[in-house]
């Protein structure tokens, strides 16, 4: 198919339009620069950069990654350069490369989220923020907060109020009984979209030592093994809210991506599978350009 006959696969999330519905997930593509020699990131809908926190974080002791037959467990622990370095060094580079950026942020208190939003409000070079309320690899209360609808609503409102013309997404945890109620809270707080899911809590043990493979014990499970769970959660979310959903979790093929749209998503993010298949994101873009009808949200009626 020639450049000219490409169909329109743009996707709107709140006040912002993205060129297509395929993104790289937070934590996978660092701050964008690392993958630029290997792929045309500009051609994707965008990237969600590694979650940043108000101050730099050292992260968890290694080992941090563990392969299992159905995916991977990780225990990165939100290592990141911190807000200031991100704004000073990382964001300008991305803007220069014309990569559409969603900034992932996490913090412990609503005040911190507010001050992050305040920092970003006057800035250029990014199209949205994703509030990561769902990282399983940290000690802090952020995860518990992410399970508390009242907190989620308040937090979202505070951030959205400052970032009126940006896409504000809330990334929610699957490790919760009723994901719909958390999503509804985000919507009530003014979120422009929901990102689901983050990794699933999991653990593996090293039989040689009789200990968990990670220093911190449990880790985050990602990759093909979580696909049916991610589809389930996105489907639940789509019945709970009417804002757009970014479907995330276990996508390793074009068909996997399509299933998220059937489940009710309006866009997808690629995580773990990028490690083995660097062409996957672009392949999904191309195939959706050829079949824009696949973007129809929700169950196809037969």
């Amino acid at each position, binding site marked *: 198919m020639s450049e000219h006959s490409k169909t329109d696969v743009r996707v709107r999330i709140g006040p912002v339009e993205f060129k297509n519905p395929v993104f790289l997930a937070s934590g996978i593509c660092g701050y964008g620069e690392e993958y630029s020699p290997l792929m045309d990131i500009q051609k994707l809908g965008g990237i969600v950069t590694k979650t940043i926190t108000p101050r730099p974080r*050292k992260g968890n002791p290694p080992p941090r*990654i563990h*392969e299992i037959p159905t995916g991977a467990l*990780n225990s990165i622990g939100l290592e990141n350069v911190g807000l200031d370095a991100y704004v000073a060094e990382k964001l300008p580079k991305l803007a220069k490369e014309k990569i559409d950026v969603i900034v992932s942020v996490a913090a412990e208190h609503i005040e911190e989220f507010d001050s992050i939003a305040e920092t970003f409000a006057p800035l250029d070079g990014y199209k949205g923020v994703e509030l990561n309320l769902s990282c399983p690899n940290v000690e802090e209360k952020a995860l518990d907060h992410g399970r508390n609808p009242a907190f989620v609503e308040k937090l979202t409102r505070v951030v959205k109020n400052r970032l009126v013309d940006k896409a504000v997404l809330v990334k929610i945890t699957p490790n919760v009984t009723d994901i719909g109620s958390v999503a509804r809270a985000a919507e009530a707080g003014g979120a422009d979209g929901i990102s689901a899911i983050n990794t699933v809590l999991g653990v593996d043990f090293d039989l040689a030592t009789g200990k968990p493979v990670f220093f911190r014990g449990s880790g985050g499970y990602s990759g093909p093994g979580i696909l049916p769970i991610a589809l389930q959660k996105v489907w639940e979310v789509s019945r709970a809210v009417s804002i757009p959903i970014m479907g995330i979790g276990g996508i390793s093929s074009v068909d996997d991506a399509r299933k998220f749209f059937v489940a009710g998503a309006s866009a997808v993010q690629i995580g773990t599978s990028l490690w083995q298949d660097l062409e996957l994101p672009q392949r999904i873009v191309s195939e959706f350009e050829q079949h824009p009808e696949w973007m129809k949200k929700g169950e196809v009626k037969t």
Partner: protein
Amino acid sequence: MIGNTHVTVPGSVPPGRFSSKLLEKRDLSDRYYLLVMSRPPAFDDPGPGTFVHLLVPDGGRFFLRRPFSILGCDEATISLLIVEKGTGTQILRRIPEGTELDFIGPLGSSFPQMPGRTVLAVGGGVGLAPLYFYGTRAVRDDCDRYRLLYGARTRDDLFLDSFEWSVEGIAFATDDGSYGFSGNVVELADEELTRAPADVVFSCGPTPMLEALVELARSRGVPHCVSLENRMACGVGACRSCVVPVSIDGAESYRTVCKDGPVFDAEIIVWNELPRV
């Protein structure tokens, strides 16, 4: 102890993603084998110490690529020296010649050029690969003199009959004394440094060997470049999976083996916090 001396390591260059053909697969011993694959024209000239991140070709069953140091690279080929460790390296040993191999590289930092200096390189097991590669290139005046000590369990792991050792000034050590120096390669390094001093030590191999070498190099006041291993995911510095603890001017932080390393100044590594791999 004479003291800690630092050395600067050349940083990594932007890698590429390639598909190339497995040209030759040769068993060198019970556990070791050689993979020779075609060199894609666009594959950058790799520094010794850099590695490729290789997808085990098994229908997507392995989620993580496997990192392997480059053993050799000429215009037409890239060679890897691999030891069978787990399922991935077992399957790689079984794939037929002609198979397409998907990899990214060259990745990571290199052992530094040391023009006019003498280098003592100490390799244990598959840690040989980057040091051997350096050795085959040392003729290009990367350094004045390059002595390579290679330690293995037993004579079989020296694959004297199945491999053309084309590095000058190599000496062998075997744990069981079946060939060359009888004992640990670090003991041999100790003797060598006594016999003829070196300006820098390069090393790659099992962590206990590296730790012993750190002590040795420190006690002789010789700078020491080490190549480390760690579990990797992205291979390009994006995911922060492969970090090792470093301490620089008293400040502790993590560096990635895939991008900041694998070759590090041994003095910045916090050895007692290194992960088991």
